[in-house]
Structures are given as structure tokens and as C-alpha cells.
């Protein structure tokens, strides 16, 4: 149980009197984090039935960093994310080959505890998906699944994660009201809070801002910035400016002629945007292709 409530002392005195919305100071991370790979992807290919969707992708995802995946629609970025938490298992006819290591366990092993993996690697979708339950139940449901049953513990974790996403002051007086009555931006932050409640190591985000208005999008973006160092974030985004603002590393995907997506270039964000090695990358980030 201590797993859930380790930074108890940190959050209790945090802006309890402050009723206005605030995300707190940005913890803008170091220019780049210690390059220690948390997930190693080698030669990953993915097929839907016989149709290849991704071909031989190799990259490392570094611990505590934000990795942005950019590229045109249909080039397999979302498929790539789905491999990392094995949501591909749910797609009939989907086949994955190659090697993916997470904390030195083989992530593609058929005998892997997928439920445990998904607890360690959370995912946020493009459209916010609050369950048709109260705000409280939305956060509690996964916690109860993992055996946290004491109401005091549940309340503590809930308050902590809602504070982390800057939602606590907006919802603390209506925790029992339906989550689906929240605005789009609030819903997305609730979904992030729900994922954070499980204390994952990695958060996969599939265009988390693209269904939101610019203000909400900005708030969520600030939030992602604050996740740096504490969580490893892999984000798919079509917003190049956003990728450039928040990412430490960037990977550029493109569709080959045979209609399979592939990774063209991967490197530090600054390098991808300012000195791309590949001409396709240069064309895409400058807006002349894609």
C-alpha cells in the first residue's frame, strides 16, 4: 500500500487555501535527461492480417524523458504505441514481430502478465474516455481492481492525483457528479489522473490534445511538461510546435511506398527539428511535405 501513498507529505500542504485554478510552477526538466533506456525496441514490425503497418522500427525510449512521435496520419504511430502496452492483443489478426524490452523483460512474450504491464505502462487516448460513472468512481475503479479497498487510502490517492493534474480545486465539491459532465479538457485531465493513480512508469499518449480547444490543450501540455522526470512519456502528436516545445526526443515516422509505416529518423528533439539528417524529416518539420 505504501507504493501508492509515498509522497504523502508533499501533497498535503500544497495550496490548500488556493481556490483558483493553477498547475503550480513548471518543472522544466534538464535539456535532456540521463540517457538510460527504459524501453528498447529492436526491429519491430506489425501486420494487420497480411498487411504490414509498421516495418523494422528500432528505437530506445529514455527514462524520465518525453519522446514525441511525429509523422503523417496512417504511418503507424498509434500502432506503435499500442504495441508498448499490448493493446494490439485486442485487435484480431494483428501480428507483431521483433524485440521489445521493458526493464529487461521481454514485452512481447506470450506468457507476460499483460494486466501488470498495463499497470506499469498507462495509456491516454485522443478522445477523453471517462467512464459513465462519478468522478470519484472513475479514479477508484482501477485502484480497487488492484486491491486498494480502504476508503482513506482511496481518498488520499484520488486527491493526490487530482491535484497533480490541476483538477482538484475544480471538482473537489462535486466528486459524486458524473464525470461526463466535465468539459473536454477536464475529462482528459481526469483520464490522465486515473492513469497516474496506478503509479505507472510510462505514459503513452495518443494525440492527447487534438480533441481539445487551445486553452485546454495548453493546460494539458503544461501538465505533460510536469510529468517529465517522474514519468516516462511517449506522445504521438500532429502538432509539431507542441512536439518541439515539450519533447526531449523525437521520432519521425513516414509511409513507405508499400504502404507500411517506418521510422525515418530518431534523435534528440532539437536535432530532429533544427538539423534533421534525412531530407524527408527536413521537409516534414519545415512544413513542405506531409
Amino acid at each position, binding site marked *: 500500500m505504501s507504493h501508492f501513498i509515498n509522497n504523502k507529505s508533499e501533497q498535503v500542504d500544497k495550496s490548500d487555501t488556493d481556490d483558483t485554478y493553477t498547475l503550480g510552477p513548471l518543472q522544466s526538466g534538464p535539456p535532456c535527461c540521463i540517457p538510460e533506456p527504459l524501453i528498447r525496441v529492436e526491429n519491430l514490425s506489425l501486420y494487420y492480417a497480411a498487411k504490414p503497418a509498421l516495418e523494422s522500427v528500432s528505437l530506445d525510449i529514455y527514462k524520465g524523458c518525453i519522446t514525441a512521435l511525429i509523422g503523417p496520419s496512417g504511418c503507424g504511430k498509434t500502432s506503435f504505441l499500442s504495441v508498448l*502496452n499490448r*493493446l494490439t492483443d*485486442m485487435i484480431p489478426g494483428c501480428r507483431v514481430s521483433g524485440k521489445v524490452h521493458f526493464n529487461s523483460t521481454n514485452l512481447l512474450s506470450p506468457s507476460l502478465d*499483460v*494486466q*501488470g*504491464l*498495463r*499497470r506499469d505502462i*498507462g*495509456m491516454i*487516448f485522443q*478522445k477523453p*474516455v471517462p*467512464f*459513465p*460513472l*462519478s468522478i470519484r*468512481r472513475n479514479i477508484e*475503479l*482501477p485502484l*480497487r*481492481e*488492484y486491491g486498494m479497498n480502504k476508503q482513506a487510502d482511496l481518498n488520499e490517492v484520488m486527491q493526490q492525483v487530482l491535484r497533480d493534474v490541476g483538477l482538484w480545486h475544480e471538482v473537489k465539491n462535486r466528486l459524486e457528479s*458524473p*464525470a*461526463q*459532465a466535465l468539459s473536454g479538457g477536464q475529462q482528459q485531465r481526469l*483520464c490522465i489522473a*486515473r*492513469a497516474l493513480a*496506478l503509479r505507472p512508469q510510462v505514459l503513452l499518449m495518443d494525440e492527447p490534445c487534438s480533441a481539445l480547444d487551445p486553452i485546454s490543450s495548453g493546460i494539458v501540455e503544461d501538465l505533460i511538461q510536469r510529468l517529465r522526470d517522474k514519468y516516462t512519456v511517449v506522445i504521438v502528436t500532429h502538432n509539431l510546435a507542441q512536439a518541439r516545445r515539450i519533447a526531449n526526443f523525437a521520432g519521425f515516422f513516414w509511409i513507405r511506398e508499400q504502404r507500411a509505416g517506418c521510422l525515418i529518423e530518431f534523435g534528440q528533439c532539437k536535432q530532429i527539428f533544427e538539423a534533421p539528417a534525412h531530407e524527408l524529416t527536413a521537409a516534414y518539420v519545415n512544413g513542405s511535405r506531409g
Partner: protein
Amino acid sequence: MFLLRTDRQLAFLLGSCALLSAAIVLLILLFLVKESWPVLQHVALMRFVTDASWHPVQGLYKLTPMLSATLYSTLGAILLATPLGIASALFSRYYAPPFLAGCYRRLVELLAGVPSVVYGFWGLTTLVPLIGRLHPPGVSLLTGILVLTLMILPTVALTVDAALAAVPVAYVRSAAALGLSRWSLISGVALPAARSGITAGILLAAGRAIGETMAVLMVAGNVVEQPHSIFDSVRTLTANIALEVAYATGDHRAALFVSGIALMTLVLVLVGIAECFPRKRYYD
């Protein structure tokens, strides 16, 4: 209101259809009242409750034993069919492999189409002797409830299945991404999301159970008496009408139409309950 002429025409057409359907319900009620008027004129409404027994030829019109038979059998059938129907739908939606689920669904649809007389036959030849061995005479409220359960089970199963199918895929994916087990997904997300559909299905089935005549008539024994245990023979309102309408004349016939009104009222109450039911606590 409408910019286009075709829109106006369509609105008129649809409006007329809606009006017609509403009018038909009212006309049926009116017809029932008109046919039962002769007896209602000189028999106070309370006498249908307070009379000593149901002997319409002697001018005794007690309807309550049959009303309670209808209520008990419907209630019993709903209580049995709801959990079974939900379990069946959960099996075919979340646990059965796709091929088996498809076959299973076809089978349940087929079950929904079996004529009630056939259920009655089966009840009469199989169920009645079985229950008779347990507690004679066999033709009883319990047999009626069991046959009714079998009849409305497919309705519950199919509507709940449809309601579960309408649960957005995003919920399922999202629940999986949180590492929720299948049962948590079902109990925590899918069932709450499908609740309004499930309620609708149960009410639909209740309506069917109230109105069902033939199967219950064949297995319930048709003794007009207030049931004291589930092994007592009972006669439902619908069975009463079906049994007596062929030879009833005068006030007797009109009294049967009063039981028709009683049935109609029952259904109206049911619809009323459905309306009062909290529609959807959580908005989409």
C-alpha cells in the same frame, strides 16, 4: 419552421403516423370502457375487489385473485429471467469465443420465436408431472412462473445483449489500458453504461409476461382462488378472458372487459414506473 417543402411534407407525414399510433391506444381504451359500460353502470368499482367470489352469472365479480395471479406470475418470471438473461448476454458478449457467441445468439433469437402454445405443451407434459411429484397437483403458480420465465428469457437476453453491444468500444479499450479485468470492465463500466437499455428490456419482458395467455393457461390450473403458496392453482386475468369470453353474455361479458381494463391499467402503471425511473444518471 422548415426551409424546404420536402421537410414540411415529411414532418406532416411523420406527425400523422405519430398521431395515428397515439389515437389507436386511446381508441382501445375507449372501446374497453364502452364494452364494459353495462356492468360498470350498476356495479360499483369497489365490488370488483370486495365481492365474495368470481361468479359473474350470480352477479359476483371479485377480480383480485386473478389480478394477484397475474402479478405474482409476472413478478416471479421477471425475478428469474432478469439474472438469467443478463448472464446469458454477458456470456455471449464477453466470454464466448466469437463463433460460439454467434451461434448462441441465433439460438436465443429462435427461442424468442417459439409460439407460446409450444411452451405450454412442453410445460403441460414435462413440467406439470415433475412439479406434481414435488407437490400435487402440479398445475400451479410455480409452473406458470417457470414457463413464463422461459418465454421472456430470450427477450431479456436479446435486449441486454443489444444494450451491451452499444457500449462504446472506447470504454472497453480504455478499461483494458488500465489493466482492468474482464469482470471489472463488466461490473464497473459496461453494466452501468448499458443500464437504461437493460431497464427497457426488463420492462418489455414484463409487458410480455403480463399479456401472455396461452402458455400460462395450459399449466396454471385455472382455479379462481387467491394463491397462498406457489404450488396453488391459479387463474390469470388473461386466461380468465380467454376461457370465458366464448360463452359469456350480458353483464358477464362486460365484466370480462373490466378485467381487460385492469390489464391495461397494469401495463400503464408499468409504463409509468418506467417513466419515473431515473432516466440516466450519467449523461453521454
